């Protein structure tokens, strides 16, 4: 019988040479004498175990998808002293294969250089994360902060006094209150959850304990929400308890193992109902093996339920959830073709000789990877192709090969030529109108990977193995596309990019701009901010860099507060045309400042609708909304960043009078509503 095949490393014991192997959630030691030379199969407990060394899948290898950075130690020691921007350099160092010690060293260096405060002009909203828990978590803070750094986020962390999470949530004068968290992570460990549960209890007694537990946790979530108005993330517990009954453990009422499993399951349902996000440690332990996450020797030594060796991965999980909540997950998967999407080189070998589909294990592995990519696109990840090939050769399999899962319409941007890949990745980001930092590039060729990392450090380039069977798992383990919800926008995304191509064709055939715009039959559909569109609103507020006048970042709860504010409004704008729905493409927030002035606090738009008269049409809506609040004039601000130069003259172009220009080129403009004449456009406006 075939069991599992994840050896971690060779270990030599005191007497016999043995090999440490993970089977399911357990570590076992196989005597090397039992492993026949050249034979990958051996016996353990009468079961056949396959013993292989597989790069890229070893659960003990931590952040294996990140590349080793040459000279890491020298660069760390030079951090803040070399000429390079210390923040950019620290971000680069964080994007390498860090273990526990390197993670802590980088964290200390960053704390020293920035004196514990976020650098000025940081493009992202700093996060203040409170870890509330029952065990020792001090060893996890550096990894969380470094995982933030990896994503360009500044995270400060706080941990309650040992075991005092309940008291601190309830005490208005606690240090937790002084810390003022922007996110709370409730990280109750399995020993704490199962306190009081034991094999001597009957089902009714266990059920009572279970009801108490879920009620207490629900109360924690409510207290966190009410007292801090911030989002809550709940960490599921690791299955650390040793089984008493075995395979049918679930039949023992007082099993701690079953109790914790039940809590993990039930709390997911409760969390969905309450809008709480999950940090799924149990799922990761199921995948990596409990040994990768929990070290019983160190548990008895220091009461660290999550092993220090797992800290880098733990921190990365927290970092990716926090980034996803800010709408900062990657958006687009860019695929190389030859030996990445199929086996062989289509230009040399020809269509018929490609390794793809049934007939070989490798051919099936490529199909499985394509299926994973297609499923990603169905949940909102954009797909693109970046290949060194003649375009006709590269497209042929997408149109002709019967085993291809991906088809030409699945690919939003298809770039096949002989230019270098960094230039082509830039072209893809430009064509799709997304930030280049939202690309993930998969290529089997280490030379191309390194070239892209060198030229475009903001592009994520996973260190994939040579085996296509591992590609999908590597992408999943790296968590680039972490999502906390699925919006209708996400599901429709690939179709939107196809429509863009059709629009381009209409533009080429139209004789002048007016007839093109008229021919688009555009509708701008506006709504006040509401809870239905909340996720997308927050995503846009935190992700939009270019067409963004003020780059103010707001959390879900900030937006909820705005909905209730009678002296402010938030508009979400959707644009449709004869080719389809562009989705929510604009956000405007207006706030009364004084009795008669409406300050345009935020105005941001998706770049893909530029040049289509959306700006003047939006201004008409803002003017109406302002008048309804009693405003006599609109005030527009421009706050410059590295990325928003394109909107420097936005308000002047719309007929505002510029009243102030600061040395940093920031400005303030004013529009008198008494004399304002709404512009006529080819866009029909409606509420909906």
């Amino acid at each position, binding site marked *: 019988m075939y069991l599992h095949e994840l050896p971690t490393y060779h*270990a*030599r014991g005191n007497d016999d040479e043995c090999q440490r192997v993970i089977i399911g959630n357990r570590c076992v030691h196989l005597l090397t004498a039992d492993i026949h030379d050249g034979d990958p199969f051996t016996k353990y407990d009468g079961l056949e175990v396959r013993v292989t060394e597989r790069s890229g899948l070893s659960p003990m290898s931590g952040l294996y998808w990140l590349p080793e950075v040459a000279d890491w130690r020298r660069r760390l020691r030079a951090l803040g002293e070399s000429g390079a921007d210390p923040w950019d350099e620290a971000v680069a160092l964080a994007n390498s294969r860090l273990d526990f*010690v390197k993670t802590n060293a980088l964290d200390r260096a960053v704390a020293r250089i920035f004196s514990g405060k976020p650098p000025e002009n940081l493009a992202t909203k700093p996060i203040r994360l409170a870890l509330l828990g029952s065990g020792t978590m001090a060893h996890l803070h550096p990894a969380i902060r470094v995982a933030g750094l990896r994503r360009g986020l500044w995270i400060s962390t706080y941990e309650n006094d040992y075991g005092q999470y309940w008291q601190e949530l309830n005490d208005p004068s606690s240090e937790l209150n002084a810390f003022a968290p922007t996110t709370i992570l409730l990280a109750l460990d399995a020993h704490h959850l199962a306190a009081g549960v034991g094999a001597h209890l009957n089902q009714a007694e266990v059920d009572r304990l279970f009801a108490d537990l879920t009620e207490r946790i629900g109360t924690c979530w409510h207290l966190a929400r009410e007292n801090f108005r911030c989002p809550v993330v709940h960490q599921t517990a690791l299955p650390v308890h040793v089984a008493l009954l075995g395979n049918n453990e679930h039949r023992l009422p007082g099993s701690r193992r079953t109790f914790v499993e039940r809590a993990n399951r039930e709390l997911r349902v409760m969390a969905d109902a309450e809008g709480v996000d999950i940090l799924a440690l149990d799922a990761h332990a199921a995948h990596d093996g409990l040994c990768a996450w929990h070290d019983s020797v160190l548990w008895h*030594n220091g009461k660290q339920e999550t092993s*220090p060796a797992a800290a880098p991965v733990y921190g990365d999980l927290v970092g990716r959830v926090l980034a996803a909540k800010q709408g900062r997950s990657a958006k687009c998967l860019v695929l190389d073709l030859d030996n990445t999407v199929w086996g062989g080189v289509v230009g040399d070998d020809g269509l018929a000789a490609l390794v793809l589909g049934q007939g070989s294990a490798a051919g099936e592995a490529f199909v499985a990877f394509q299926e994973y990519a297609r499923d990603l696109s169905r949940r909102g990840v954009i797909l693109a192709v970046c290949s060194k090939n003649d375009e006709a050769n590269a497209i042929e399999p997408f149109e002709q090969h019967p085993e291809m899962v991906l088809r030409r319409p699945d690919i939003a941007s298809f770039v096949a030529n002989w230019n270098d890949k960094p230039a082509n990745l830039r072209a893809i980001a430009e064509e799709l109108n997304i930030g280049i930092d939202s690309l993930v590039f998969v290529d089997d060729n280490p030379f191309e990977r390194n070239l892209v990392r060198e030229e475009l450090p903001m592009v994520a380039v996973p260190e994939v193995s040579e085996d296509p069977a591992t590609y999908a798992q590597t992408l999943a383990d790296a968590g680039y596309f972490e999502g906390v919800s699925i919006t209708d926008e996400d599901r429709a995304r690939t179709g939107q990019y196809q429509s863009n191509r059709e629009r381009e064709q209409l533009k080429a055939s139209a004789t002048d701009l007016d007839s093109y715009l008229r021919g688009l039959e555009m509708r701008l559909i506006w709504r006040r901010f509401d809870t239905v569109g909340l996720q997308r609103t927050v995503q846009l507020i935190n992700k939009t860099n270019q067409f963004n006048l003020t780059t103010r970042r707001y959390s879900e709860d900030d937006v909820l507060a705005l909905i209730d504010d009678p002296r402010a409004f938030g508009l979400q704008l959707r644009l449709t045309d004869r080719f389809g729905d562009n989705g929510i493409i604009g956000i405007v927030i207006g706030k009364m400042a004084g009795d008669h002035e409406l300050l345009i606090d935020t105005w941001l738009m998706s770049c893909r609708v530029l040049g289509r008269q959306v700006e003047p049409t939006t201004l008409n809506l803002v003017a109406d909304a302002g008048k309804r609040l009693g405003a006599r004039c609109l005030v527009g601000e421009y706050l410059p960043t590295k990325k928003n130069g394109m909107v420097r003259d936005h308000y002047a172009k719309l007929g505002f009078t510029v009243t102030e220009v600061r040395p940093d080129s920031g400005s303030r403009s004013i529009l008198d509503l008494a004399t304002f004449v709404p512009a006529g456009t080819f866009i029909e406006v409606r509420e909906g």
Partner: protein
Amino acid sequence: MPEAEIYAALEDIFRDVFMRDDIKLSPAMTAKDLEGWDSFKQIEIIISVESQYHIKFNTRELDSLQSVGDLVRVIASKV
């Protein structure tokens, strides 16, 4: 493996953990002799040693570590 070799490798580990290049180890050295050698650093040292030598300390061995010399003896018994 000769103990001298282990001392040399341990010095590299200690230099990384403490981010100092001037650390010299001796058998009698204890946590009191090195600034910043707290329980957190101790875990970093243990984990670095475990991953470098592909070994695992057991509970009794962890409890027995009082000095650098103890650490070297435990490593030597396992590699």
